[in-house]
């Protein structure tokens, strides 16, 4: 064994000292022969005989040297090196071809590498610095078939009794206000369990993480760990920061630690800027949920499974625990289960909504790569035809077909390796590109990084190898057909109408047309869906209604002060020129914040077994429906009289009226909200609450005064543009209290657009790649048609000599090209009918077989192929019959 290794090392080092060793060999053999000759002369031979005899008994100097060289170095590597250098020279000789091929491959492999890096960085290993992410799973509650959050006591019970879990930690996204001048900014933070930093294996670079017990007690531990980014930007990298205080949501927090650089928390899509222990929950959700309340469902948790435990096993154990809790606490846990999710399906961050996009993207970039391969393969074919002579000569002087094949594959490898290098560079540049497609929300850190690690490199390498094989095989098919006998026969001319030798190239073009047709159909479907979503009536006015809010909570307002301020401000706002209506609401529709949710009861409504009727509601001020333009069906709006002293009232939407009062008029009836009975005073039309593509859901409204919130959103309906109304509002706010600031102001249309950004991303990416595919396919078609025309000048000349006009010739060539396109489209239609179902959930009110989408893809691709065929066809008409026949 040691000897083999030693031999290998010696042989390997010999590769690098070849010249020196070659000289040594010459010298040694020369001295051998000279000694032999000398001996023979001494034996009495003539000089010539002595030399002859010495050479004879030596037995072939050159052959010996060859054997010696084979023994000395590594012949396989040496031939590979030879092939490589030869391939390099060949490619350099035709720079146009090489550049085009490399560009195509860079695009193809780059698109793959970029998408893989996004999948890796966003879905598979989304949390930099967090240890053992492959064993992390997300926990979310379910009630019946619907998803809900889990409660803190439930999670503590799971943590205590789960034997398959190594650790369980909670990390909920939250926000806190930081004011900068007259504009306030919400920064993203996380409410975490005390074991958070230990559980994920991230240790603060300054100070400490949370200590056990810091997550219990009501508002008992106002401590905060800040992100490196926040430390650098807001605290200017102050090394003495530990122990200093900072107000977060009007509670003074002691800064106990700074998270290390490159740690962005555990929320796909956002960079987390600070972490507070769960004991501070009420300071961050304005008292809506209490920590010890088993019915308060707010927590989002992750579990790291013990090594070797599958998700299924964990699910079974955790469901068993949930069932036990259900039996133990029927009042809060009836019908509730806890579900285990893979990290990339995490329902409570952006992973879940990005997953379908990435599934499609992987398919799309594979298509693009296939098209690229077909294209470069076609280019190689042209070249292999041009190189027939070279190949034939090499075969004739004794190169094996295997050796030729190796040469071709080496050239393919050279091309695809350069393409892969360029592709990884492209992926590196694009690793943060996804962020560009997502709207910035009020200056928040959107964090969607691609991650180029060894796994991505390995997959890209594999893609590159597969590409090489595909590329090498295409010309190899051609080469293996070379017969020596026909070597020097001049190539007989091709025929436009006939298939013959061009069938490989033609089928490659058909493949490209097929694939790009599918991509175009997909892109069109998504575009239609996006247009439908964005133009769907959300049930409220969007263009002329603005939304923002004032930093009352952060400025330390209590409820009485806030009430006075809100009253004064709304009066001033209504008096502003151009303002038609204005109102407050705790939550803006289609925003990130959740509406309040409550178990409800209605007289005469008997819930089914296991049904716990719940509904969501919004706390709104008088004039809310007029401001948003939500039509009232019956009853009245809230008025100033519906305050904390008046009887409690509610307004329900149509769906709620239909479900719980079975179409009877609910006005005057009772509804139980959070244990209190309130009277229904009005019915309004349904609108969209969370998503544009949601189905109508039961929903109701209560007066803000009766369910007060210190920092509601203010909605303003006005004819003024955004800048004007924003300046005016800031002026009015400052006039009341100069310490206050305004959050970001946007129109409700912008709110709609932001809520549909997922679809926008899908459309942008698929359209981008679809366009790229179309371009590549057109180039491919153009190439094949030009080739066919150039090969059949003699036939074309003959036809023209016999009386064919320019239009006949043009028709002939065009019809050949369009035949290829049509074949591609026919296959494409069949394939697209099967594949567009993959778009499933992303399509909104558009059938995956929408004839309009198929039709427009057809038109686009037909036009593109017409353009691609026109130039070669025109060139065909310029053939000079006399010259074509003479040549």
């Amino acid at each position: 064994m040691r000897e083999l290794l030693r031999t290998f090392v010696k042989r390997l080092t010999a590769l690098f000292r070849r010249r020196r060793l070659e000289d040594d060999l010459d010298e040694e053999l020369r001295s051998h022969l000279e000694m032999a000759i000398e001996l023979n002369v001494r034996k009495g031979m003539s000089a010539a005989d002595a030399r002859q005899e010495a050479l004879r008994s030596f037995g072939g100097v050159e052959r010996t040297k060859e054997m010696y060289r084979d023994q000395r170095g590594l012949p396989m590597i040496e031939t590979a090196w030879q092939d490589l250098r030869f391939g390099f020279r060949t490619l350099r000789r035709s720079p146009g071809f090489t550049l085009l091929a490399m560009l195509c491959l860079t695009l193809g492999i780059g698109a793959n590498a970029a998408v893989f890096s996004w999948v890796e960085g966003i879905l598979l290993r989304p949390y930099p610095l967090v240890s053992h992410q492959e064993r992390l799973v997300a926990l979310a509650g379910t009630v019946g078939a619907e998803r809900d959050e889990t409660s803190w006591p439930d999670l503590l019970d799971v943590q205590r009794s789960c034997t398959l879990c190594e650790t369980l930690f909670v990390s909920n996204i939250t926000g806190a206000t930081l004011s900068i001048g007259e504009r306030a900014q919400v920064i993203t933070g996380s409410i975490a369990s005390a074991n958070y930093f230990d559980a994920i294996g991230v240790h603060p670079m300054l100070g400490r993480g949370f200590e056990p017990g810091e997550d219990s007690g009501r508002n008992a531990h106002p401590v905060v760990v800040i992100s490196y980014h926040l430390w650098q930007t807001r605290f200017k990298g102050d090394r003495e920061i530990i122990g200093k205080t900072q107000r977060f949501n009007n509670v003074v927090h002691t800064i106990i630690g700074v998270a290390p650089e490159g740690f962005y928390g555990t929320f796909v899509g956002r960079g987390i800027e600070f972490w507070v222990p769960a004991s501070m929950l009420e300071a961050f959700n304005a008292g809506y949920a209490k920590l010890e309340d088993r019915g308060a469902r707010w927590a989002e948790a992750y579990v790291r499974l013990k090594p070797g435990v599958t998700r299924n096993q964990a699910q079974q154990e955790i469901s068993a625990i949930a069932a036990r809790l259900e039996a133990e606490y029927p009042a809060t846990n009836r019908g509730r289960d806890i579900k285990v999710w893979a990290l990339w399906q995490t329902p409570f961050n952006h992973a879940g909504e990005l997953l379908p996009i990435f599934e499609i993207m992987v398919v799309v970039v594979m298509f693009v790569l296939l098209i690229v391969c077909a294209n470069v393969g076609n280019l190689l074919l042209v070249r292999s035809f041009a190189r027939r002579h070279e190949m034939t000569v090499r075969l004739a002087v004794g190169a094996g077909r295997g050796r030729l094949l190796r040469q071709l594959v080496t050239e393919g490898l050279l091309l695809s390796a350069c393409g892969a290098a360029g592709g990884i560079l492209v992926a590196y540049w694009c690793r943060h590109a996804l962020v560009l497609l997502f709207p910035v929300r009020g200056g928040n850190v959107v964090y969607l990084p691609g991650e180029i690690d060894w796994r991505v490199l390995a997959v890209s390498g594999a893609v590159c190898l597969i590409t090489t094989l595909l590329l090498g095989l295409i010309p190899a098919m051609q080469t293996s057909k070379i017969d020596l006998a026909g070597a020097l026969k001049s190539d007989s001319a091709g025929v436009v109408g006939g298939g013959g030798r061009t069938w490989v190239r033609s089928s490659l073009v058909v493949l490209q047309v097929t694939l790009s047709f599918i991509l175009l159909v997909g892109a069109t479907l998504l575009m239609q869906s996006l247009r439908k979503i964005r133009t769907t009536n959300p049930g409220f006015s969007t263009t002329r209604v603005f939304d923002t809010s004032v930093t009352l909570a952060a400025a330390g307002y209590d409820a009485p002060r806030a009430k006075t301020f809100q009253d004064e401000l709304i009066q001033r706002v209504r008096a502003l020129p151009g303002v038609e209506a204005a109102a407050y609401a705790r939550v803006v529709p289609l925003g990130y914040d959740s509406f309040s949710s409550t178990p409800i009861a209605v007289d005469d409504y008997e819930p089914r077994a296991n049904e716990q009727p719940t509904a969501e509601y919004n706390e709104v001020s008088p004039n809310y429906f007029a401001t948003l333009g939500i039509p009232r069906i019956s009853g009245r709006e809230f008025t100033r009289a519906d305050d904390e002293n008046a009887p409690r009232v509610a307004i329900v939407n149509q769906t709620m009226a239909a479900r719980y009062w079975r179409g009877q008029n609910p006005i005057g009836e009772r509804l139980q909200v959070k244990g209190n009975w309130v009277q229904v005073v009005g019915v309004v039309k349904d609108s969209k609450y969370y998503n544009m593509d949601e189905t109508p859901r039961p929903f109701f409204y209560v007066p803000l005064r009766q369910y007060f919130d210190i920092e509601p959103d203010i909605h303003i309906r006005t004819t003024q543009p955004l800048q004007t109304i924003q300046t005016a509002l800031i002026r009015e706010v400052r006039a009341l209290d100069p310490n206050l600031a305004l959050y970001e102001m946007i129109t409700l249309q912008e709110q709609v657009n932001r809520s549909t950004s997922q679809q926008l991303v899908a459309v942008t990416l698929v359209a981008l790649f679809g366009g790229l595919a179309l371009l590549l396919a057109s180039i491919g078609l153009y190439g094949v048609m030009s080739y066919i025309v150039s090969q059949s000048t003699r036939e074309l000349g003959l036809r023209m000599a016999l009386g064919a006009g320019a239009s006949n010739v043009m028709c002939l060539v065009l019809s050949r090209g369009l035949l290829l396109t049509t074949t591609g489209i026919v296959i494409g239609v069949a394939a697209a009918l099967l594949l567009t179902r993959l778009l499933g959930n992303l399509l909104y009110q558009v059938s995956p077989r929408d004839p309009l989408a198929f039709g427009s893809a057809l038109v686009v691709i037909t036009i593109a192929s017409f353009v691609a065929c026109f130039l070669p066809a025109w060139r065909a008409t310029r053939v000079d019959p006399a010259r074509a026949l003479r040549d």
Partner: protein
Amino acid sequence: MAISKSEVLQGTLDLLVLKTLDSMGSMHGFGIALRIQQVSEDLLQLNQGTLYPALLRLEQRGWIASKWGVSENNRKAKYYSLTRAGCRRLVEEAESWDRMSAMINRVLRTT
């Protein structure tokens, strides 16, 4: 009858070279070739050239070492000598050759 070169197995040539170096000490390639021919009384007619890849192979495995030197008639030549590992190898090879030939002899003699 002369033994044709194809019958000189690779392992045999190795053994002959090692044995030669063992008994004669440091030698150059031509010397080794001559010596093998003499000892085998010209029965073994090997192409002297084949010796060189064999020498390289033995050297790569670390059984012999080489050094440039000057021959008796003042010619530059590469001298080969047995290494310690080569000595051990020779003993092993010789033993296994003995066993092999004894075995073959036995087979041939039993009828």
